[in-house]
């Protein structure tokens, strides 16, 4: 027994930074948003793995499992979000990794956001969302232990 534990102190595991896989799903190549978000989250202390462009839902989930990520962030600007965001959630389910949180960003109409949340997407950030709102949402979701 260590001295600390003997003294009744809490043994704290070193806080591991939240690890996030950011991915561009679908065919569009508009990566301005995802890159800005990646930098901001990295500066805020998150561990960021950016997959690059044209990832299929299978590739994204595989990357998240390989990297042992807790979060997947999806960026898409082509209008295919109703097909591809749920496909990522479905793939996580198939791989028994539903504990990985999925959020997304892009041009997503309000009605679609409601539907995507029903289908298991945790949050959607739309144009004009402050970076701080994404950081706050993640911190809230993963409070420091």
């Amino acid at each position, binding site marked *: 027994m260590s001295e600390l534990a003997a003294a009744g102190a809490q043994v704290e595991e070193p806080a591991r930074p939240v690890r996030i896989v950011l991915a561009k799903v679908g*065919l569009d190549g508009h990566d301005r948003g995802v890159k*800005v978000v990646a930098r901001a989250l990295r500066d805020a202390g998150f561990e960021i793995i950016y997959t690059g462009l044209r990832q299929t839902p299978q590739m994204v989930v595989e990357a998240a499992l390989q990297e042992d990520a807790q979060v997947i962030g999806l960026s898409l600007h082509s209008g295919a979000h109703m097909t591809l965001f749920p496909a990522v959630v479905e793939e996580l389910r198939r791989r028994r990794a539903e504990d990985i949180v999925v959020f997304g960003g892009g041009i997503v109409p309000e009605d679609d956001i409601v539907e995507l949340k029903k289908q298991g997407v945790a949050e959607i950030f739309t144009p004009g969302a402050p970076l701080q709102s994404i950081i706050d949402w993640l911190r809230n979701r993963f409070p420091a232990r």
Partner: protein
Amino acid sequence: MKVRYAEETFAQWQRQFETAPKRSDGVSSTTVSGADIEPLYTSASLSEGPEELPGEFPYTRGIHAAGYRGRLWTMRQFAGFATAAETNRRYKYLLENGQTGLSVAFDMPTLMGQDSDAPTSRGELGHCGVAIDSLDDMETLFRGIPLAQVSTSMTINSPAAVLLCMYLAVAEKQGASMKQLNGTLQNDILKEFIAQKEFIFPPQPSMRLVVDSIEYCAKEVPRWNTVSISGYHIREAGSTAAQELAFTLADGFAYVDACLERGLKIDDFAPRLAYFFDAHIDFFEEIAKFRAARRIWARHLRDRYGAQDERSLKLRFHTQTAGVSLTAQQPELNIARTATEALAAVLGGTQSLHTNAMDEVLGLPTDKSARIALRTQQMLAFESGVANTVDPLGGSYFVEALTDRMEAEAEAYFERIDAYGGVIPAIEAGFMQKEIADAAFRHQQELETRQRLIVGVNEFTAGNEEDEIEILRIPRRLEQEQVERVREVRRRRDQAQAARAVTQLRKAAASPRENLMPYILDAVRAYCTEGEIMGAMVDVFGLYTEKAVI
């Protein structure tokens, strides 16, 4: 330039300025690109040199002596969604409402060279534009529109040669001569590697296809604008105005170099290179950018490339107002933003213009929002009076000084790109991509810290809750219909002819000296699909993947 005031007068102004109370809102006085702006420009800001007139080298004041007195800009609204039949209806609607040229937006699978029934096309059909799989769709797209009489712009890059051949084949079926056709192909692959990222092949074979199409059109389709060298996407990806100008012109020079290397003569192809710029929200900076672009192009074409035909020296450009400047919050305000940007484009001397619809930040434009966007241009042309005099801002201390500075900044970037060994090595090193990402991040931070305000986004947000606006939805059934249609085309065609065309194209692709255009045209005529034609070239050229850098 001779300063026209006494030094003492200026010193007096300076004292007054320094002691005057200043705004304390914390908002930066830099341009949207982050460039410093003096509080006052005077005759001391003007560079030496003889006074320049419009239509005169280096065309800072415009390429036409008569400006818009001679001819207004072309009002060319970019449109395309769902299927060819739906888009055909929108084109007719726009033409009936006074639009003067067509501009085709293709959907993501078409832009990425794949057919509608490819597995990765799921969910993407018809959202960003119209789905075109084969000549059959192209015939539907232009049904009832005489191609000999309209001018058409097509925004397509990696598969540009294929879509151009489809257009030529439709014209052929309508009985139009290729020599009559007017239009523009975006066909600018370099900015795809830099910014928009819709690349398929690696840079070298991509460039070969661009040069093939330039070479082919110079002979066969002489009135066609073969490349629309685009700053728009560079800017929308987050670049500054100076970066947009510099990277775009550098791309233009790279196409010129590639054509010269092929053995083409400068004056045989340069008159058909056109440009496409963004009109962002920072009014004067944009006007200066357009003026500087003309001057840079003219100087380089004459002095570096020895062009002699005046048409080679005259930079013609299309402008689109800035999609990135639009806000999802209080979207009706986008009408005012677009009008401001459109005015900058007109004062910068644009040859054609697309004004964004207010709802493009939310989804596809409705008939109504598309009409308002067009009407905005018509107001500028016929109500505002800005078209009455040529280059009305010529001689403005501020605009002239900004124009000079924009040119100098672009020249400095050309040197940095040259240090990499040219545009392609600079792309491969990620130079431009990094510059753009840095600028985009800096802009976002300015918004976060409120050094820059955007109405409805980080200030003046009252009213945001009323954001109810109608948006256009693409019915799911159209996706299934399009999938059926391409399969039907494959079933119906002469199989032997189609197979032969693809084999011959593949063979020609493997032989670097062949111009691929005639082979692609044959494949298109045989109703080979876009995916099949691009696939044959992928077999030979391979696929490009970029190293993702944050």
